[in-house]
């Protein structure tokens, strides 16, 4: 019995010092729809001494360097507003937050959207309300892609 307990104890020690080996660095952002830009396999859940070192190096794994213009190139591009690169990038990268803010009719991401679409300050409340009432049109399906979202929003507000 003692021996079994002993092995158990040693296993615990090893477990607690090594379960950070598979650190959550598998952060992927593929796809063009909802749920794509939330990183998968987060690093915040595992915890151990070794993660202490991970967290303070704030490690990146190469891809994230000078993202002055971030790529939406792997996705279908919007038809109507192609020239507004910043708008496209923003919607692409913030689709989930936008969905939430549009559904609530307020929030920082819809304010940013209004600014990017140059909606006059006095028309913004109406703009948010309009988006909220048409939520089901903007996000008609689970696999809706960002380009379509941009197109619908532009159509709705023109």
């Amino acid at each position, binding site marked *: 019995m003692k021996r079994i307990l002993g092995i158990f*104890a040693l296993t615990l020690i090893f477990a607690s010092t090594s379960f950070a080996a598979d650190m959550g660095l598998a952060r992927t952002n593929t796809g063009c729809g909802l749920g794509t830009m939330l990183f998968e396999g987060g690093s915040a859940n595992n*915890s151990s001494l070794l993660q202490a070192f991970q*967290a303070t190096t704030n490690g990146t*794994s190469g891809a994230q360097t000078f993202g002055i213009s971030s790529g939406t190139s792997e996705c279908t591009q919007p038809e109507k507003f192609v020239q507004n690169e910043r708008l496209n990038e923003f919607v692409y990268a913030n689709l989930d937050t936008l969905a939430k803010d549009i559904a*609530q009719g307020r929030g*920082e991401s819809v304010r*940013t959207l209004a600014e990017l679409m140059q909606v006059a300050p006095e028309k913004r409340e109406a703009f948010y309300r309009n988006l909220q009432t048409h939520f089901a049109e903007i996000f008609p399906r*689970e696999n809706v892609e960002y380009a379509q979202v941009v197109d619908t929003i532009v159509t709705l507000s023109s």
Partner: protein
Amino acid sequence: MLRKLAYPLLFLLLFPSLHGAAETTPYRDELKESATKLRLPDDRYWHVLLHYKRGLFGTESLVDDPKFFLSPDGRNDPSAELDAAIDGLFADGEKEQAIPRCRFPARYDWLVRRLSVDLTRLPEVSCPILEEQRNRIDAKSASLIFASGHMNSPASMFGHTFLRFDSSYESPLLSYAVNYAARIDRKDNGLVYAAKGIFGLYPGYFSILPYYEKVKEYGNMDQRDLWEYRLNFTEEEVQRMVLHVLELQGIYSDYFFFKENCSYDLLFVLEIGAPAAKLTDRFRLFTIPIDTVKAVRAEGLISEPVFRSSQARKIRHIASSLGDADIARARSVLDNAVAPEKILAADIPDTEKGKILDLASETVQLRYAKGQYTKEEYRKRFLTVLSARSTIPASESVLRPVPAPEPPESGHESSRVALAVGIREEDSFLEVSGRPAYHDLLDADAGFTPGSQIEFSRAAVRYYPDTGRIRLQEWDLVHILSLAGRNDFFRPVSWKFRTGFATKPFPGGSDALVFFLNPGGGMAWDIRPLGLVYVLLETEVDVAGRYNPDYTAGVGLSAGILRQMTRSWKTLLAARQMAGVLGDENRGREFSAILRQGISISRRRAIFLDIGRTVSPGLHYNEGKFSVNFYF
């Protein structure tokens, strides 16, 4: 108005050369002469630009990438590098990246100003890529951003800092963030990772990304709060910082976990904007991110921060504004027991319906980020909740903003020394202890993560006047404790890790220095009005010649209650029972109980009172200790 501000750089780029090559040599010599006269190689700004520091072996740049230097000796020789930089003024070419003036714009911006360079006597060059990047960044002002620790990960408790160049957009999300981080190898395991991190074997690079990416990374993914401190720099100073960041593009410096880390290298960029503030000189052995914020504040460069809550805090906030019945409704939506549309039909005000659905959608997102749903599952749940939510008008669901906790820079200082008097059985003692970093469970929580402890290298030396004994009482190499309360929406694991040396008493009045390794894991609950109650399963291995054989391994349980009595008074009541299972089993058996009081007097002072009892075979003793703590 601001757009009209002309920088010397622009002239440098736009003015055509009116003179032939034959004339450049004398002008070059003239410039070198005036550089020597002005003692530019010793100029502090030149040293900031090139990240020069005086070390054991003379002056050396902390940048390790040879690409950063124009002279082959540039890394160790500021004067040779300056010479090469002057030569570089006369270089032109086809490829923008190969033209020094385009590649190192901050360097040349300064050099041209200091030497009053006549740009018409230089070859004509243009840097379209550089200009495009600057226009895109469009920096008008800058903010220092502090990412606080994660609530259940003292690992990240040291925090993180990065910089944001605020653009002419109203929305800060559209500004660009500048981050310095180690580029790690995904294949490395934890131990290799730690070793490489400590000994500078990973290269550190600057990156620049839209701020919304950082908000997603820290606020949504890692559940860390962000504090945004506006820097009171002029636009011109900010533009210089932009130029410096751009010249550091693709340049590496060896990343050292303790000192030359994310926050330290950022200080060089800040010094470019405010050279009078000698920020990098303040950190010699280690750089703790929050300490850099304090340093920047001490230099008068920032004022009150803006708080950006993490998603987890937001969820707690919404939950705290709802009654039990509504929380249960939100839970039933999350458990798929009730369709979101059913919430709309419930006989409650619209405001509450809105909050219930908001609580659900935020939690769905958080769970997805934690990998609890597949993408398909997430999309389905997320959209059905949001569809229901979109039918409630915005005006019907005004939520108070998430209240900001105490800002991190208001917390106690990280280093601590303590003077203590105490008594063990009949022997009185004096004790001196100290730690370079960072936070003890009993230290005041303001600015720190409640229920967390992370101490590095805390050492205590004890003197018993009656017997004349002096002992290294404890030397905790690392002592981490993370107690995170579980509730309806969060189920974190609590854990501890402690290793180091301690003097342990043995039967017969003798003692011995013991090496110990003590991890543990368990759970904690915030039980009102008791406090934070925790239970941990622990194991411990002790090694010393006094054991027979040379070690003892034990397993056991510990439990305790941590309670915030008043704003500045904390109490911890804890007990622990270990049983020896391997090695010197008899000595592995130990019971201990302790009652600790911590009273914080100011950011720099606190008093602790500890009373405890320890019982092991053939040995038992009571101990009391009163200590005065100084933080600095």
